[in-house]
């Protein structure tokens, strides 16, 4: 009991809400030490680094964005080139087709011409042959007829000029008849 009283007396003497001056001074000193180091050196230090880090991260993001933009533009360029190439190819194909068609038409025209030439040459040849044959025939027929006539009338009709005149007249008559009969 007496101990309790002593404790109570001590408690009254030392009110825990009344700060002793030396402890205030030491408390202030201790805090000033911490504040001084933090405010003057350590926090500016770390702030600088945090800022650098932020910039580094944002720089990285910007770089990535730039790369993406470039890739996009390259892709577009590539697509444009591809489209152009396709267009060009189509154009070339078209041109080749047209050229081919023109060439075929030309060849066909040439072939036609050559054929006509050949046909015409053949006709001319045939005509010439016919003429030659007809003249040869006419001579042979004349000769035969003359010979026959000479044998029949017994007289030589060897006078050549007269002979041929008669034969020609005869043949012309024949031809006229043939034409009239046609």
């Amino acid at each position: 009991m007496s101990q309790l009283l002593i404790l109570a007396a001590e408690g009254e003497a030392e009110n825990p809400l009344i700060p002793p001056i030396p402890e205030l001074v030491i408390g202030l000193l201790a805090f000033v030490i911490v504040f001084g180091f933090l405010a003057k050196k350590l926090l500016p230090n770390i702030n600088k680094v945090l800022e650098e880090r932020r910039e580094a991260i944002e720089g990285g993001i910007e770089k990535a964005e730039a790369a993406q933009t470039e890739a996009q533009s390259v892709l577009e360029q590539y697509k444009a080139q591809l489209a152009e190439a396709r267009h060009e190819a189509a154009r070339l194909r078209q041109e080749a087709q047209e050229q081919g068609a023109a060439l075929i038409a030309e060849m066909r025209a040439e072939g036609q011409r050559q054929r006509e030439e050949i046909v015409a040459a053949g006709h001319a040849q045939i005509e010439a042959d016919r003429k030659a044959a007809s003249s040869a025939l006419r001579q042979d027929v004349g000769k035969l007829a003359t010979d026959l006539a000479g044998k029949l009338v017994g007289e030589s009709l060897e006078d050549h000029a007269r002979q041929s005149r008669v034969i020609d007249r005869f043949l012309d008559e024949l031809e006229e008849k043939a034409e009239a009969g046609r």
Partner: protein
Amino acid sequence: MSADPTQVLAFETDCHIFDGCGFPAPGLHSFLFEPLWGDADSNLYFNKTMLLALLGSVIVVGFLWAAFSKPKVVPGKLQMVAEAGYDFIRRGIVYETLGKKEGEKYVPLMVSLFFFVWMMNLWSIIPVAQFPVTSIIAYPAVLAAIVYVTWMTITFKRHGFVGGFKNLTGYDKSLGAVLPLVMLIEFFSNVFVRPFTHAVRLFANMFAGHTLLLLFTIASWYLLNGIGIAYAGVSFVMVILMTAFELFIQALQAYVFVLLACTFIQGALAEHH
């Protein structure tokens, strides 16, 4: 008891239950220390709490020095931990209450306050020291006074004398007839009560916490006799639980102290109270 200069522990070690020895309950005497140097009657002395306070400062500065003196853009483990704490105060408290633009100026003060208070609280459960520096009113009082001076300076600098007075009294014409009463209460609250409660809130929490820890620790030892041993075990479990709880309270009180400091300054910065 505390007057005995040879005593280093907070209680008598040869005192057990059933030995005809009363329970050496913790009390105000548990918060008094014989000077390590000097004379308690003069104002020139050095005691355990002073030693812990200065040592705590050195530890806080040492820790942050190790973490921030040569900081790297890609942080190491220590820097990462310290940065987390720094960022918590800066973003979590200062920017949240004061905003980034206004708050930036007060970040060093608030960060210092937080780490300082936390360290001083942590002494409570650090073996051998085992005494929260902040359970001596002088330390919270100094810190609260620093905040108070800062707060008042801002109030009058920002609003002028009349404006500052209006700010502190919550002057608002629309209140009409009750305005004088409101002004009186607000003035009293802001100018006298707030700094006092700011300091005492921290002090009382640490004081109570330390007393509880002492109570269970002393009981664990005191009951260590006969049937009392079973109760000593229970008491010891309480010591462990209370230590864990204190660890939480220490950080929480440091946070609350800084948050209140920011709130006061926020009020001073506000254009219209």
